[in-house]
Structure formats: C-alpha cells, structure tokens
C-alpha cells in the first residue's frame, strides 16, 4: 500500500517534469523573438534587443529552463512582461477567485449528476434513462461559451434574474457574490453533468447486475434497502474517482467561462497574457492548471485504492 503510493507519487513527479519541459518548449523555445512579438514590427532593433535582454530570453535555453524551474521551487514564477510585476502576485489571487467559481460548480453538479446517473440506471432502457442520457450527452458536448451565451440571453437579458458580468462590486456580501457566480457556474455544470452521470449510471448498472444484489433481492429485502445499502455503496466508488479527476478539467473550462463572463480568475489571466505575449505569465498559469490536475488525479488514485478492498489486496499480493 505505502509502496504503491510512493510509486504513484514518483510517476506523478516524473510527469510533472515532462509537463514543465513541454510548457517551457511552448512558452520559451517556440517564440523565437519575444521582444519583437511584444513590441511589434515597427520597433527599433535596439529596443527589441534591450527588451529581450531585460526578459532574459537571450540566455542559453538550458540556463533559462534551469532558472525558471529553480525559481518556481523558491516560489518565484518570474516577472510578467505586461504588468512588470512578479507573476505570483497576480496569479495566486486569480487562482483563489477561480477556485471559488469551480467550487460552486462542483457543489451543484455532484449531487445532480449522481442522482441523474442512478435514476437512469434504475429505469434502464426506458424513457427516463434515454432522456437523461441524451440530455447529458448533448450538454456535455456543447462548448461552455455556447451554453453560457444561451444562459445569458435567457436569464440575464430576457428574465433579468442574474447580472451579465460575474464581477460583483467591491464590498458585496458572500451571499450577494453567489448571485453573481451562479450563471457562470452553470456552463461548467453542464459539461460535467453528462460525464459524471454516465459514470454513475455505468457503476449502478454493474452493481445491479451483481450476485450480491440478486441475493439481497431474493432474500426479500425491500427495494429501498437494496438500493441504498447494496447498490449505491458499490456503484459510487468509480464515480468518486471520476469526480476527483474532474477538478483538473474544471480549471481548464474556466478559461472560457471567465472570458465570457468577464471574471478576473486564472483563466482570464491566461487569456490576457496570451493576447499580450506575456509568456512568463502564460507558462506559470498553464503549469498551475497542470499541477492542479496531477494533484487531483493522484488523490483520486490513492482514494480509489484506499476505498476499494479488491485493489488493496491485489497490490498486497
């Protein structure tokens, strides 16, 4: 068990190193002349050379990568070229705001999608099942900004229930902030719903077909008891790990939602950085998304091992 977790941790670290190399390649190797990209075609060559020197991109690539990585380990994510401020001073507050939005989406989607998946499984092949599955599939496949636009048109412009922008005026109470965040959270809920519901449905179907459920039914237990005690307990195990890995996805979906709703989170920070060729900010933002994802999947894997006795014994063998 401990050995498995250690091995899993080592793999995650290795993946992280590879990820940092890929991000560095995209953000520091591909842009051959960041100074020119930032200043545009009409800037003097001198100014471009000076900016490149200031950014440190005229150093050998290995030096650049090494100083980037060691900087990160010391909590220094580099300097944002657009704001001339340390990246970390902008990144962490933005990440905090993003997590707030992601958490809200999560709190909404988890109970709804599990309920949907279990219901679909209990009514397998019938109208309830088919409508939940098709709705889930459709909602999952529509990009967040598309459903976001439809939601804005209906609920913010038509019915005027919610504001168009997600940024509350300063000094808004937490409950008031919630009012601003609900509409942006829903497109994220849509995309996740179909996926989690599908897993919950598959897990429940598997449990329903199992011998222990047949035994429980045959020995005369009431349907309610069978479902709560025997089916759900076993069917939700795979779903839990799927939910945990979705954390990483959520952070990615925020890029779109935050842009559409003008919300100052990590996603919008990345898009702004991209528009201004602020490569250090872009690299740091994407790396943070990757780290959140890797951490979430690591936790999911460990959770799965801890919760599932079968895997635990197999590992022990």
């Amino acid at each position, binding site marked *: 068990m401990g050995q498995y977790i250690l091995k899993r941790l080592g*793999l995650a670290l*290795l*993946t992280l190193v*590879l*990820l940092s190399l*890929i*991000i560095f390649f*995209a953000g520091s190797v*591909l*842009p051959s002349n960041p100074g020119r*990209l930032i200043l545009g075609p009409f800037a003097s060559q001198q100014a471009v050379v000076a900016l490149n020197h200031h950014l440190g991109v005229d150093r050998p690539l290995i030096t650049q990568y090494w100083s980037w990585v060691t900087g990160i380990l010391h909590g220094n994510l580099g300097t944002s070229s657009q704001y001339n401020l340390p990246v970390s001073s902008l990144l962490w507050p933005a990440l905090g705001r993003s997590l707030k939005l992601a958490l809200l989406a999560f709190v909404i989607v988890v109970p709804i999608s599990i309920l949907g998946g279990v219901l679909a499984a209990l009514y397998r092949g019938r109208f309830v099942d088919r409508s939940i599955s*098709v709705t889930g*599939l*459709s909602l*999952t*496949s*529509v*990009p967040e*900004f*598309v*459903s976001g*636009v*439809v939601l*804005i*048109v209906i609920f*913010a*412009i038509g019915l005027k229930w919610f504001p*168009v922008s997600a940024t509350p005026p300063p000094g808004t109470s937490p409950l008031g902030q919630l009012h601003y965040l609900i509409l942006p959270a829903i497109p994220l809920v849509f*995309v996740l719903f*179909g*996926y989690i519901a*599908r897993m919950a449905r598959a897990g429940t179907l598997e449990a329903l077909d199992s011998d222990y459920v047949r035994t429980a039914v045959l020995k005369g237990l009431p349907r309610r008891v069978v479902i709560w005690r025997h089916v759900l307990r076993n069917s939700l195990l*795979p779903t839990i*790990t*799927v939910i945990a*890995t*979705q954390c*990483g*996805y959520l*952070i*990615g*979906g925020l*890029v*779109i939602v935050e*842009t*559409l709703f003008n919300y100052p989170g990590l996603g919008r920070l*990345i*898009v702004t950085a*991209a*528009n201004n*060729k602020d*490569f250090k900010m*872009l690299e740091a933002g*994407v790396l943070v*998304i*990757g780290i959140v*994802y890797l951490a979430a*999947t690591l936790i999911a*894997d460990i959770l*799965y091992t801890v919760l599932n006795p079968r895997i635990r014994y197999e590992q022990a063998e």
Partner: protein
Amino acid sequence: MSDEERGDAPIAPSATKDPPEDAPALHDPAALALLTATAGDATGTVDSSAGTIRRENLRLLLRSPAFLIGAAILLWWIVCALFGKAIAPYNPVTGSLTAFNEAPSGAHWFGTDSLGRDVLSRVIVGARDILIIAPLATLLGTALGTTIGLLQGYFRGRVDSFSGRIVDAVLALPIVIVAFLFVVPLGSSDTILIIIIGLVFGLLISRTVRTAVLQEQDLDYVAAARLRDESNAHIMFVEILPNVTGPILVEFTVRLGYAIFTIASLSFLGFGIQPPTPDWGADISNSYQYLAAGYWWETLFPALAIASLVVAINLIADSIEAVVIQ
C-alpha cells in the same frame, strides 16, 4: 482504469475503458474465421465475415433515431459548407452601411451585427471553415494515434512506458489549453490549427488503440503470423489493424465532435479561425460584448449553430459506439 479515461474530461467514450484481461479470444469473429481457415485462403474468409458484420451494423444504425437526427443535422451543415455562398441571402463579409445591430426582421431573419452584416448569411457560410479544419485535424489525429498505439501495443516494454509518460504529461492539460499554449507563440492559421489539434488527438487516440492492440496481441492469429515469419510491420498493419477498426471508428467520431468543440473555443478566445472569415466562434467573440446592450441575436444564432453541430456529431458518435460495442 482512471488512467485510461482522464485526459479529455468531458467526452470519454466507454470504448476507452480497459476491457477485462481475460476477454475470450473466440468471441472475435474474424479471429474465429482465421482459425478455421487454412493459412492460404484466410484473407478471403475474413473479408466475407467482416462484410456481413458491416452490413448488419449499418442496418442497426439506420434504425436508430438518434443517428438519423444527428445525420440529418450534419448533412444540413455540410450542404451549407459546400454551397453556403449560394444559399446565403446576403454577402456575409460586406455589411450594409445603414443597417447596424438591427433586430431580426423579415429582411434579416437573424438580424444584423455591429458592422451591418446579415447574421443568417454569416451563420450559413460560417459552417465552411470549421467543417474543413475539424475533420482534417481529426483524420491526422486518427492516423497518428493508430500508428503510435500500434507501436506501443505491439512492442510494449520501453517504447510503451516512455511514450506513455509523454502522453500522460500532455494529457494533464485540457485540450483547449494545450492547443492554446502552442497557437499563441506560433500564430493562428488553418494549417497550424490542424497540426496542433491533430498531434494532441493523436496522443489521445493512441491510448485507445494501444488498449485494443494489447488485447489482440495474445490471440492465435498473431501467433500464427509470427510463426509464418511475417515482418513486424505486416503483423501490425495487415493482421492487427483490421481487427481494431471498431474502436478507431468510434474514436474518430467522438474526436470529431471534440475537434469542433476545441476549434470553436479557440476561435472564441481569438486564437482560432481569424476574421473576417465568417466563423461561429469568432463571431461570438466579436459580438458577446454587445449582449449587455441587448443585441442578443448577433451572439445567440452562431451559438445555436455550434450547439446543433456538436450535438449532431455526438448523437452519431454515440450511435456508432453502441453498435460497435454490440
């Protein structure tokens, strides 16, 4: 299992699930045919049995309402992509100089945008670029993913574990973010979009193909081919590949929906299809700031167009998946 299913969060075909290790070999009709046939006329037997299966699958598909609805919508957008300029009531690129931000009316069914361009015409012609880029990117990804997956599954060992790590690393990021990361320094053009999305999809698809190949590996027909002293390339592409086309087809259709999702999202962020080419995502990106002013039609209709296209492709993908798994 979770290892196989992460990567692209929203749509994960259940075909990517790890099948049980002890999947009975004889359930594969092609393998059965091969076993009963002599080595010489083996190929003929396989073809006829595969042909029957294909015809049966097609019949099942044509009876599925989800497939028919999806196919009808997709067909409509393909017609728009091919003949858009002829169908569109107005020129989609040059606007009227007098009609800005006009609400839907008899003259302009979907209204006009902030430059006085007819929204209906832009929606119709906007089908073209995305329906060229997305299938090409998906095709590239499928070809690449099939090759990588075959190599990984066939050679296993070091090749497999090293390339597996790289796949893991790339898949730690949502596809939109990976594409974004590379499009920003390289600049956006149709070719670059196709290559980047194709590369990322190649990695994703390689996982499914690898899993399928690993199962085929242990079947008798592979052992038979080895005994006949066939080359590795022959075994991979002539023997194994025809037996894993089912999962590959499912991957292709599912990824196609996802390619449209990704390209539309990139266009929305300003890094996909570039203006003034009519494109749904880019049009939304240009017009959503006017939503608060109440000009909802400029944004809503392109949004509905994207939604209908991705839903259609996912309905098709889901039906194909159901048939292939049966």
